[in-house]
């Protein structure tokens, strides 16, 4: 694959089994690092606030990003709007560790995602299915996450997207060379990339889950389904006790196969974020991007 960000793919491999937490201040970043986050995502408002307050959601102020970089030793990620190459260049100049081209922010380009291959900083992108994941990888994404439905505290969409990707990869095994070629053309992805996925029976980059994770059990469920790590957005700093919630989700992500441990970390946790029914949503962030 031409223009792969191999060093970025390597960094993603180091993050596996970890939890990446949304933070809006340097203080929150320190709490996240202490609680065991393997990286933090710097943004101005968490998804549930973006959802509630509306308005255009943009890249964070570089001032905030620099404060967060100064405060923690773990990797710092930040979000850019879909297709907003200028925001991405700004984050690159700030030397952050990973850029999230995110549907949580208001899309900037109605035609194209950022051409990621010309960047030295790796990108992580959201996907709802295999075709979308492969289009992002073909553009140069070094890591994939499910979109889920951010800011809802409802895990159902993250489960849907992870299972969808897995099912579509399984389906490739039964397809003839002709069918594979047709699928690749329809999905606008190179057939070589598709064949590589078929052979490896997985995406060629590390795959995390994101969107709606609110409890330790949510994180464990997604790990059981084959996720390689977890992004938590509003779930931590919108809970009644962020430090405890963060620690419990970190424990559940690592010990997802240990039911006793899961019971222990789930016991007596303060109120998680309230949560929203997907069918009651006015707009779905997962439908942004293509």
């Amino acid at each position, binding site marked *: 694959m031409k223009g792969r960000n191999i060093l970025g793919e390597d960094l993603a491999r180091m993050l596996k089994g970890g939890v990446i937490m949304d933070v809006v201040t340097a203080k929150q970043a320190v709490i996240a*690092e202490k609680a065991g986050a393997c990286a933090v995502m710097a943004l101005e408002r968490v998804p549930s606030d973006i959802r509630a307050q509306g308005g255009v959601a943009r890249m964070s102020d570089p001032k905030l990003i620099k404060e967060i970089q100064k405060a923690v*030793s773990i990797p710092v990620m930040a979000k850019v709007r879909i297709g907003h190459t200028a925001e991405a260049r700004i984050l690159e100049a700030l*030397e952050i560790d990973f850029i999230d081209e995110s549907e949580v922010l208001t899309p900037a380009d109605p035609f194209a995602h950022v051409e990621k291959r010309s960047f*030295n900083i790796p990108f992580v992108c959201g996907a709802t299915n295999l075709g979308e994941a492969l289009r992002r990888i073909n553009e140069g994404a070094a890591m994939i996450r499910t979109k889920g439905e951010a800011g809802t505290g409802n895990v159902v969409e993250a489960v849907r997207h992870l299972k969808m990707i897995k099912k579509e990869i399984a389906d490739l095994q039964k397809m003839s060379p002709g069918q594979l070629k047709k699928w690749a053309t329809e999905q606008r992805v190179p057939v070589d990339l598709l064949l590589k996925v078929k052979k490896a029976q997985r995406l060629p980059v590390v795959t995390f889950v994101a969107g709606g994770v609110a409890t330790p059990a949510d994180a464990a469920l997604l790990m059981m389904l084959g996720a390689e790590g977890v992004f938590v957005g509003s779930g931590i700093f919108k809970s009644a006790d962020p430090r405890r919630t963060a620690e419990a989700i970190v424990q559940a992500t690592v010990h997802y196969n240990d039911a006793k441990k899961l019971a222990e970390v789930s016991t007596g946790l303060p109120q998680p974020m309230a949560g929203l029914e997907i069918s009651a949503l006015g707009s779905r962030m997962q439908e942004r991007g293509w």
Partner: protein
Amino acid sequence: MAIGVLAFHGDFAEHLEILRTLTVTGLEVRSLDDLKKIDRLIIPGGESTVISRFLAETGVGKEIIRRVHESTLAVYGTCAGAILIARNITGKNAPRPLGLIDITIDRNAYGSQMQSFETEIIVKGIAKKLPVAFIRAPIITKVGTDVQILSMHKGHPVLVQQGRILAGTFHPEVREQFAVHKLFLRL
């Protein structure tokens, strides 16, 4: 006995894959029980702050120290693993070291992901040059007199050994390079 790979977080699957290539049995280590089944342990790359928490909470960290002191455990740390087994760790928000090897190591000393790089290194006792990756890597800034330097890169030791403890600041496992693992299996 199986070769353990500490499996709380990080690229432990890549190390297990290397062990499979070498046709030795690998075991994911997350508990004191797992630790009983092994006499060699690889601590993978990842975030040392995260791995450190789990070493402390599970008691696995203390047991590693005890086993190394009674000479029943060999340890190979890569990147975050090398940080954790050092005697001294410098840099922001440094985790508590296990102190298995007499080195001082500086976390994220090259800088952010922009400064991550891949290169070929020469290792004492390995005939071929090894293509490896340095990912937000630490730098070994001091080595004790009993520590042997097996590889240098740009003036810094990148692979060091003291008895049955091996510390490397680079990742051979993400380039499917098994020569350093083979060397570790001979310690």
